């Protein structure tokens, strides 16, 4: 509301928010009678609080007016203190996490185009995941607390009350922790969901679609569930169990626990499945499969290389082509096909232990060779050196004796390890397979050191297993009769192929 001193043609103007007051001196005002006190009086009369008035600004205004009295002059001469409202509490996500979240969001909204070439070696977009994974205790961001704000004062001296900031609207559940400094970190490993209304870490990753260019490869610290399929060349790795609802193409699946495929894998000789515990699938086609424990197949294991640490349960399934190795017992409907495609089943095979034992045996043989060579050279040199060998010869003899002793110690340790490995293998293997319908001509069953080639078809239900002496037999489950397999199939013995036999040649089994 402007107020005017009539005699001096000065007006006091207050801003709409009353945070400033100005004085306007009109052209032709009586400046001889106007001084700072006059302006102050006009301001006070207009309700301006003396504490808000800036005398220097008044003096500057009067000086300007006197220098150019023929025109209007106006200047801000009083200021209030603006209010500072409190800020709301908010979560600030760490830049690296935010970048990943933004990247994942972009990928979900606009998946990259598939590579043009079938074998595009620079396909980085396979590795760009659309999910942000955090590990337990990993820092996610920080909760910035709300502030109270600071009251303001207008030029009339009236207090302008500050508004207090609001509490954070974002919801944080137990999957995240906040320390005294407001640092937010993950309570456990998992999939980070961070939006404007909530921040949480999910232990399981549920993918509503399939694994493809919209998701990228998956590497997750817990369970993963994929509603649809997994496309060619993608990988899903998890430290829990994995479930896939539709077809898995030539992809890589790797789970620490179980893998369940509602359908199966069409691996095109590139697909790989590796599971620490059980695998359940309708079918496996042209894939490499490692199962730590048991494998349940419903329909078909076709042209696949399969290693199962435990049992194969596939009473309605056919095994055609490829090689299936079983540590435990097996059960299937059919092995081989009428086309006589070579189908190999290895019984009593613990792949990982055999690989370790094989490496141990190689090392054992190398050590024995080295020890024997050192011994021979020691004897030769000692004989040549006589009772008082020269200094250099004495050193070489010492060195050879040291080599012999070192080899002996290593051999002793290896033998102990190999013996325990063989004991373990013998305890866990269960070399038998029951075939309900038919074993086709061309099927090869490897049992221990025996290679059994079926020259004609054998109708089920039958069980191929070993007898008390370890020789392969065929048991007719209808009649209950057992026949040595060499009466039915071409059986050859290949001791050297069988790691257990090689170990037992060195270290006989302990008496029961």
């Amino acid at each position: 509301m402007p107020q005017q001193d009539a005699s001096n043609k000065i007006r006091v103007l207050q801003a709409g928010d009353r945070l400033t007051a100005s004085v306007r001196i009109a052209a032709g005002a009586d400046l001889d009678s106007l001084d700072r006190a006059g302006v102050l009086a006009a301001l006070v009369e207009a309700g301006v609080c003396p504490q808000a008035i800036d005398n220097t600004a008044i003096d500057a205004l009067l000086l300007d007016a006197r220098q150019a009295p023929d025109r209007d002059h106006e200047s801000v001469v009083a200021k209030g203190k603006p209010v500072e409202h409190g800020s709301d509490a908010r979560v600030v996500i760490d830049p690296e996490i935010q970048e990943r979240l933004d990247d994942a969001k972009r990928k979900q909204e606009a998946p990259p185009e598939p590579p043009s070439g079938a074998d595009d070696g620079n396909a980085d977009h396979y590795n760009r995941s659309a999910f942000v994974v955090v590990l337990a205790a990993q820092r996610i961001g920080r909760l910035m607390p709300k502030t109270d704000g600071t009251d303001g004062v207008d030029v009339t001296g009236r207090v302008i009350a500050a508004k207090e900031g609001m509490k954070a609207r974002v919801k944080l559940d137990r999957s995240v922790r906040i320390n005294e400094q407001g640092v937010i970190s993950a309570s456990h490993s998992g999939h980070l969901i961070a939006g404007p209304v909530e921040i949480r870490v999910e232990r399981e990753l549920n993918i509503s679609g399939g694994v493809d260019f919209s998701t990228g490869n998956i590497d997750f610290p817990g369970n993963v569930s994929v509603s649809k399929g997994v496309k060619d060349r993608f990988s899903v790795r998890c430290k829990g169990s994995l479930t896939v609802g539709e077809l898995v193409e030539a992809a890589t699946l790797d789970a620490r626990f179980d893998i369940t495929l509602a359908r199966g894998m069409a691996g095109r000789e590139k697909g790989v499945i590796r599971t620490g515990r059980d695998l359940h699938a309708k079918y496996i086609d042209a894939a490499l499969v490692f199962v730590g424990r048991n494998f349940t197949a419903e329909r078909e294991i076709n042209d696949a290389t399969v290693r199962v640490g435990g049992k194969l349960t596939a009473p309605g399934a056919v095994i055609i082509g490829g090689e299936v190795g079983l540590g435990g017992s097996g059960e299937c409907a059919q092995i081989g096909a009428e086309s006589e495609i070579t189908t190999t089943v290895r019984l009593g095979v613990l792949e990982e232990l055999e690989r370790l034992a094989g490496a141990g045996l190689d090392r054992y043989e190398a050590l024995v060779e080295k020890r024997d060579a050192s011994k021979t050279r020691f004897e030769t040199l000692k004989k040549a050196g006589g009772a008082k060998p020269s200094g250099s010869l004495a050193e070489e003899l010492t060195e050879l004796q040291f080599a012999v002793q070192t080899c002996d110690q290593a051999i002793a340790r290896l033998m102990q390890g190999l013996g325990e490995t063989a004991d373990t293998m013998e305890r866990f293997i269960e070399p038998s397979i029951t075939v309900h319908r038919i074993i086709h001509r061309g099927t090869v069953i490897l049992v221990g050191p025996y290679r059994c080639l079926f020259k004609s078809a054998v109708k089920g239900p039958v069980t191929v297993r070993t007898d008390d002496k370890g020789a392969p037999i065929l048991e007719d489950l209808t009649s209950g009769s057992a026949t040595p397999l060499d009466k039915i199939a071409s059986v050859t013995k290949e001791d050297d192929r069988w790691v257990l036999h090689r170990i037992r040649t060195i270290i006989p089994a302990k008496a029961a």
Partner: protein
Amino acid sequence: MRIMLVDDSKTMRNIQKSVLSQLGYTELEEACDGQDALSKVGAFKPDLLLVDWNMPNMDGLSFVKAYRAQDKTTPIIMVTTEAEKSRVIEAIKAGVNNYVVKPFTPDLLSQRISETLSKAGIAA
């Protein structure tokens, strides 16, 4: 337990190191002759020394005499091809506590070390 190995042959030092590490000794220092050993004993302060006799610059016997002038107690094992009785006596007079003749087996070296430490009243 700090052990110093004094031998001009790196191979011999390596063999001794292997035997000693199998016995659980890991604080080891190496010297390639008597002079090198004298320059290191002050800082390393060994609890046991394995010393070869025939070495360049300063042989093992001279080293033992020089070392005994400053340290009367730390046990010394002479590891050498010098097997004659007179040489053994000479070494013992100079201050050697035990004697291992090359060629030796790791077991023999291990046994000599244990008995030397035991006689010296040092826990192995």
